[in-house]
């Protein structure tokens, strides 16, 4: 039995007085690999903001054990004009650990080097972040999140807008981080295929619909129909999920 890190009990999320999803109950434990899937506008970002503590829940309770988040935002939200290097960006991950007046120490430099090595971009550390490809930028942001030495790594739509090789290379990296480092991972995506064959647990969400559980229990044609208001076939071939959308004219 893995240790619980975060527990949502009957939580309602939303902005101001506007409720987006009610009665969410989720337990995130150590070594979980959870996919969060739903159509655009389903409330995934609102759920993430609530989980990260940036947004207060409208009702319900959230219990948090001692933990540290590593957060990888959507790549398009980070478009700096200043020519920060990859090293500068990854070092930012250490800032919250240094205290208000603290300066980087050897421990911080080592952690940054280790994070860069982990995601395979050590050779790019002196490059400008702006000059990198989409995949390299995403790896930089993952390295920054790893530099926090997190208990939970949260990735928001990490493969958005990537070409196919970069897309799968990044998914492999995320799986490796979970398998090798036993890192708890929350992977947000609007692409079912991104998460179905990687994660252990799944959150399917749309407005007024929320399902959480082991992937085998949650990933059903009925639940997908409720989430996407569209019909799907869910099959397993050689242990891999194959999900096809049924288009009817």
């Amino acid at each position, binding site marked *: 039995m893995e240790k619980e890190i975060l527990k949502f009990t009957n939580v309602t999320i939303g*902005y101001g007085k506007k409720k987006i999803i009610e009665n969410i109950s989720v337990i995130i434990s150590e070594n979980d690999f959870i996919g969060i899937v739903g159509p655009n506008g389903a409330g995934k970002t609102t759920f993430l903001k609530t989980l*990260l*503590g*940036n947004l207060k829940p409208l009702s319900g309770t959230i219990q948090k054990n001692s933990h*540290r*988040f*590593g*957060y*990888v*935002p959507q790549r398009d*939200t*980070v478009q*700096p*004009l*200043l*020519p*920060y290097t990859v090293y*500068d*960006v990854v070092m*930012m*991950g250490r*800032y*919250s650990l*240094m205290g*208000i*007046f*603290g300066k980087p120490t050897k421990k911080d430099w080592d952690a940054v080097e280790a994070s860069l090595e982990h995601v395979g971009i050590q050779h790019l550390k002196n490059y*400008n972040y702006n000059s990198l490809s989409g995949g390299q930028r995403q790896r930089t*942001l993952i390295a*920054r*999140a790893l530099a*926090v030495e997190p208990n939970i790594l*949260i990735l928001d739509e990490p493969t958005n807008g990537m070409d196919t090789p970069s897309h799968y290379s990044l998914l492999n990296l995320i799986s490796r981080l979970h398998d090798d480092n036993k890192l708890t991972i929350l992977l947000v995506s609007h692409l079912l295929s991104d998460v179905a064959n990687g994660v252990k647990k799944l959150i399917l969400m749309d407005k007024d619909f929320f399902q959480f559980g082991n992937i085998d229990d949650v990933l059903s044609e009925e639940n997908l129909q409720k989430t996407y208001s569209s019909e799907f076939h869910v099959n397993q071939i050689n242990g891999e999920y194959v999900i096809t959308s049924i288009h009817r004219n």
Partner: protein
Amino acid sequence: METVNQVLEFFPYAVLGGILAGMICGFLGIFVVSQRVVFLGATLTQVSVAGVAFSFLHLINIEGMVASLLGVTITEDSFLHNFEPAFFSLLFAVIVVLIFSQTYKQKVLTQDGILGIIFVVAVALRIMFIQKSPIAEVSEVESILKGDILFIGQSQFFTLAGIFLFTLLIFTIFQKQLKFVTFDAESASAHGINSRLWLLLFYIVVGMGISLTTRFVGDVFTFAYLIIPASIGLLVSKKVSHVFLIAVIAGGIIPPISIFLAFKYDFSSGPAAVVTMFILFLLVYGYKKLRGS
């Protein structure tokens, strides 16, 4: 050489103050440009001018209150004599910054839209305040509240030096936090840094710098020096530290040159400083284009 000597003899604080004002704007401008909040810079300059215009109504006797607290007379104290316009300029700017920092809470209006509303209201209020000012000549009020490099005296110079040091101090001490929240506020929050608080501090420092600089050197100078030196820095350099260095140096070098040119060819110093900076920008841009980078 004779003109240079005359400028230094008659306007020593104008030259030194112009250098400081240019350096303050060059430094803050990097954040304004890189944060893509250029319109905030434009709005704050107009709000500051409206604040100065408000002070001419003499509705609240701030100078008198401070003088009685300090036990001095206003006429004896040159700093206090100019306190009220600077105070209201700063107050108006800080209020706008506080409003702007809360705009993330609503999703109905864009930040640009909100700044646009504040901008036009500030311009309108300025006109209304001037019309009700007890000073008879509207053109006289306009010239006072718009500021002029040549009017920089000893007390304005020391105030500018204070702003410059204060800004550098804040951005040096809290370099990490301000760097992270201006780069990626969402992730900074997720990683345990209070982005709202640090962004508020950031905008207050920027607002203070812009409002007080506007008070002393005018809105056109301030806005131009927020944008152009930072743009030159970003054009030329591929290192963050060099961007700051180039913007601050460009901001500091051009004002004394332009004061000299304005004096020699009988132009207003503020517009001359803007045009000279723009010429430098064109030269840098042309050089970059010719080199194909």
